[in-house]
């Protein structure tokens, strides 16, 4: 194996350091959608932003569109339901289910009582939505927009200061965000035209709504993040504030580290080293090699993202713990460490 330089170039270090983000502005929005390919850590990022929002004194609602309970788990809570569940002071979680969203919608606007004679109606709706998902997407964004508009009883103050949305995987986020715009071309009349118009207005207002993209230092997640950004820009016209690169291996293998490892595995020293350390040093070399290689990969994808995306790209260090509140807190700290 040829000798390679283990000291990362300035360009690599700069790429991996990422940029500072304006977290205050981000958390000052009304609705933040967190989108990305499956497995890119959307739930953890959504949960971390929710913690930061609550820490900043905002009343936060975190919405799980997939409703698999991942978001609640990332906040250390058992699965929530369609009714917001308080997981800590100023922070509630809601799991969005389109059937319940449909019932609520009918109840509010058409005075159709909940849970009465609705099953056949819901089935017909479900059936149509399987073929033409527009209405279902609309129920997702509709519910989110409804929560954004909700006011405290007898007051003009909104119930939530900040709504964070853990989007469904990949392309689905895009169809949710574009649903209102698509509906406008489809629905020329009818009672929902006006409703769709204000939902579309909310999504396209960069002061109120934004998207956070998630990626991993791997080919497909990076490519998909770049493509998703392009499609969001062209499709729904929603603003994208930052891109987060999760599981970034951002600690380089320094020259001193490499020198130490080389000395450890030097055949002349190995026996003595193994005796003193209580085990052979060879496995240590393997982990340092892997570290160096993953660092290079991270840097490569950081560069690619930064050259293709106009917004700041933020690496979040790889966290060994399983997903859960501890990991979420560590991610929140990593994010707030990048405060502008």
């Amino acid at each position: 194996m040829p000798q390679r330089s283990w000291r990362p170039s300035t360009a690599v270090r700069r790429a991996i350091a990422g940029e500072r983000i304006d977290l205050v502005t981000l958390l000052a929005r009304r609705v933040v959608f967190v989108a990305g390919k499956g497995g890119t850590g959307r739930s953890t990022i959504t949960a971390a932003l929710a913690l930061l929002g609550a820490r900043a004194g905002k009343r936060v609602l975190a919405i799980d569109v997939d409703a698999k309970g991942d978001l609640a788990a990332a906040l250390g809570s058992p699965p929530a339901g369609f009714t917001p569940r308080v997981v800590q002071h100023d922070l509630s979680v809601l799991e969005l289910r389109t059937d319940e969203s449909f019932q609520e919608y009918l109840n509010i606007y058409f005075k159709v009582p909940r849970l009465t004679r609705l099953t056949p109606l819901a089935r017909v709706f479900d059936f149509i939505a399987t073929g033409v998902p527009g209405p279902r997407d609309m129920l997702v964004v509709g519910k989110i927009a409804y929560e954004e508009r909700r006011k405290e009883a007898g007051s003009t103050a909104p119930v939530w200061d900040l709504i964070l949305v853990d989007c469904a995987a990949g392309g689905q986020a895009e169809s949710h965000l574009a649903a209102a715009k698509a509906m406008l071309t489809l629905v020329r009349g009818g009672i929902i035209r006006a409703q769709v118009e204000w939902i579309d207005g909310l999504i396209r207002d960069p002061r109120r709504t934004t998207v956070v993209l998630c990626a991993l230092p791997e080919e497909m997640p990076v490519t998909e993040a770049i493509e998703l950004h392009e499609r969001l820009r062209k499709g729904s016209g929603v603003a994208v504030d930052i891109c987060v690169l999760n599981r970034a291996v951002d600690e380089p293998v320094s020259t001193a580290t490499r020198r130490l490892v080389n000395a450890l595995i030097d055949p002349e020293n190995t026996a003595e080293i193994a005796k003193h350390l209580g085990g052979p040093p060879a496995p240590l070399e393997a982990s340092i090699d892997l570290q160096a290689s993953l660092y290079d990969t991270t840097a490569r994808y950081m560069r690619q993202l930064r050259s293709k995306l106009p917004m700041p790209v933020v690496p979040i260090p790889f966290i060994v713990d399983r997903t859960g509140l501890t990991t979420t807190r560590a991610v929140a700290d990593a994010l707030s460490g990048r405060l502008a």
Partner: protein
Amino acid sequence: MSVAETGHVPERRRSVRKEPAGLGRRLAPLDVIICCGSGGVGKTTVSAALGMAIAAADDKRVLVLTVDPARRLATALGIKGIGAEPVRIPKARLRRAGITITGDLEAAMLDMKQAWDRMIERYSPDRATAQRILRNPLYQRITDSFVGSHEYAAIEALYELHDAGEYDCIVVDTPPSRNALDFLEAPSRLTDYVGSRLLSLLSGGPSRFGFRAMNFAAAPFLRLADRLLGAEVLAEVSDFVQQLQLLYGGIQARARSVYRLLRSPQTGFVVITTLEQGPFSEAEFFCTKLSEFKMPLRAMVVNRVLPDVFRDTGGVAAATTLVEDPKVAAWLTDHLHTRVSTDTARFVGRTFLNRHTLAQRESRQLSKLSRLGDVPIVRIPLFSEEVTELEGLVRIARAL
């Protein structure tokens, strides 16, 4: 820099040799191999490598049908691009990369729109019906977003290719589904949808008087839908589903033949997963469902497994000393004749222990795998470089 030159993790060949015969040789007699697993587990790469291993094991004409638009796979296969037309992978190029294939290896990418259009043309009772459907503005949206539409297109393309009999073995890389079951359920779901009584209701039934003459029971819903959406939308939907119903007979018959093919002893499913929680539980679920559907699971491929070196107990002891012994840096400085700081010593120890934690978690997952079925389980070690060149793909093919 080629993959072979870079510092890859030393890997113990032992883990690969556990298999009595290579997976390529075991699967070569099959006509159809369906690779399943959740997105991001390296399904496309493993499918391509599997095709390679089969072509190397036997004198077969092998086609890898992929749905993955990643250009890198084409690069990795040593060709410019993959389109709907199969492209042959040059044997000389493969030999240079370190694998000699006795058969033929070709790759093609699924063209979704084409697959759907052809399906409509095939099942329509006449050309006029086909044209009317193809021109309907809703059609495009449905082919794109009908639940399982990618899966259905993949199955259709597979069935046609198998029927044409040009290839001895077709390896299919399934679309990255939200739900791995979508692939298995796509044909019956489409049949149910097109044949459903609800759809007849919406399309105005056989009377064809249009929407208003509909079954009385649907009236409250339609009044509501009218108020919600406006009448025009419903009229468009109605026209579309009326046409679609004319296809029912053809679609139903095809679904039956497709399930026959999927259950055939000449077909095999290969479940691909990593040891991460999400993909792993999906793989477990999928294996259970395969046996419920009576579809033959032939092998499991576990991708990106951390090598055994990270499970080494001696390594753990050495790393722990580096992290915990406050005097270790001074001792190393003395004995190695090079200055070693406490931070550096700790970094080396911590880096190993982190990988060890992950490796241990993986071991626990691996031990669960054998419960899922009495099939060969092949582990592919984590190569620290991504597979971007033919050499990398060949390395995986060899591991198979």
